[in-house]
């Protein structure tokens, strides 16, 4: 079975209904093989259009939907394949051409290709990505909007210990814990980086919601003193949290950057570019706020923002 469009296969099987189920069960070797052709039609375009993917992250899906709607407004045929897991899953699909566009983030994308990549300015990382990406893939311009890891604490804790930068944590007497996804443990800006660059000892309490509400709650409840909350998360402003500054640029910048294949022509690139140059850091926070607070769908959030900015 080829790597691409397994989700389409699945949905296609659905369309074909119970019959496909029976056939799949009796047929044996590969229950999902034959249904792709029927399924592809649900997005209207087939292989001629642009296939937009997104990570399994609500904020990423909103950005993908912004691209989808400006492209449609320009007359392109767009197929959406959202919520496809993490980089190890979708990068091969971009490389094979099964996806043609996906919004990614500068630092994490570079780290995927170069695990030892050091932190640098967004411009430098963007240039390094030009070198690191394999044949057939390229990144477009990056947006001002960024969604990066952080050492965040409550305003009370920051005031009590006069904290403004990560380095100020070195003066805190008590043992420090940070709620974050498991892999924070082995990231260059994790406990090891904090120790090496700022002389700060911190241990990880793993909470696998990528800085979501449970992580925020743990911080507010005082279960942990710090949390890795992504900087575009509306919870930071809502709970008056303090993102500690990173003067040594330990944390990689994570500006939004589309990674694309040759299926994106100049016209499409220009359309996507209008979104990229309009998308500020505050805009991204507001888009996310509409998703988690208003529980609005990515389609509604995207169309409201695009018409407000006059982009469609």
């Amino acid at each position, binding site marked *: *079975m*080829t*790597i691409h469009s*397994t*989700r389409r*296969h*699945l*949905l296609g*099987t*659905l369309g074909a209904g119970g019959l*496909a*189920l029976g056939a*799949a*069960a*009796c047929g044996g070797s*590969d*229950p*999902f093989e034959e249904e792709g052709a029927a399924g592809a039609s649900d997005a209207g375009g087939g292989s001629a259009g642009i296939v937009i993917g997104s990570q*399994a*992250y*609500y904020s990423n899906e909103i950005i993908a939907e912004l691209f989808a709607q400006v492209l449609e407004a320009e007359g392109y045929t767009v197929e959406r394949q959202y*919520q*496809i*897991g*993490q980089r*190890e*899953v979708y990068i*091969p*699909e971009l490389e094979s051409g099964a996806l043609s566009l996906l919004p990614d983030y500068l630092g994490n994308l570079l780290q995927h290709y170069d695990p030892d990549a050091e932190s640098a300015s967004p411009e430098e990382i963007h240039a390094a990505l030009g070198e690191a990406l394999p044949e057939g893939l390229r990144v477009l311009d990056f947006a001002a909007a960024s969604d990066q890891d952080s050492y965040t604490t409550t305003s009370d804790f920051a005031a009590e210990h006069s904290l403004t930068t990560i380095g100020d944590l070195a003066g805190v007497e008590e043992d420090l814990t940070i709620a974050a996804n498991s892999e924070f443990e082995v990231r260059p800006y994790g406990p090891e980086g904090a120790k090496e660059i700022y002389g700060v000892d911190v241990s990880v309490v793993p909470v696998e*919601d*990528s800085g*979501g*509400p*449970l992580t925020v709650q743990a911080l507010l409840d005082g279960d942990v003193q710090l949390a890795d909350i992504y900087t575009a998360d509306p919870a930071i402003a809502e709970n008056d949290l303090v993102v500690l500054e990173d003067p040594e640029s330990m944390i990689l910048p994570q500006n939004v950057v589309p990674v694309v294949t040759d299926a994106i022509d100049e016209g499409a690139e220009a359309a996507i570019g209008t979104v990229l140059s309009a998308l500020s850091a505050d805009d991204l926070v507001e888009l996310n706020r509409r*998703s*988690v607070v208003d*529980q*609005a*769908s990515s389609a509604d959030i995207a169309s409201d923002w695009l018409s407000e900015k006059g982009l469609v």
Partner: protein
Amino acid sequence: MRWVLDNLDVIAGYTGAHLVQALPPVLIAFALSLPLAKLANARGWLRTSVTTTSGLLYAIPSLPLFVLLPGLIGTSVRSPLNIAVALTLYGLALMVPAASDAFRSVSRDVLGSATAQGFAPAARFLQVELPLAGPVLLAGVRVVAVSTISLVTVGGVLGVPSLGMLFVDGFRRGILAEIAAGVVLTAALALIIDALLVLLGRALMPWTRQQGVRSA
């Protein structure tokens, strides 16, 4: 609740994808368990080891199995086939011992008299042994179906579409209704399939309707 009403199409898509992933492994595990159980019953030592190892197979945590299977069987990370193979393995772990019990519950005297009446081996299996083992087999399939439907959700952590995606997305966005909808629908799917299996059993084995089912 509003989230649920606003996202009925998303929920319907995941529900369908969930069934597509859950049902083939149940059917395949059932079909494979019959010859495996017959084989195991023919050799005493094999039966003991099958019952022991199948319990152990069930102790393998599902998430790592889903992730590691591509490396073992050469599929892609996002292939639904990984989950299908893993779920079939779990299904076999439950179904083979159940089928082994089912066949052992059929009296040897009955089989002997069927042979004496001139049943050929294949006909004896299909017309005598399988129907008599039916009630215990059905009980096994019901457990496999319910457990498989519940296990499919774990694929959501890896981004494989199923009702489990509602747990991961709801957890990330803090939408309780989204997670609750996933839990309720998963349980409902399991109970509906279970009820359908009971009805199927009554249709195929009308004699079990009256008397109590004798279990092994």
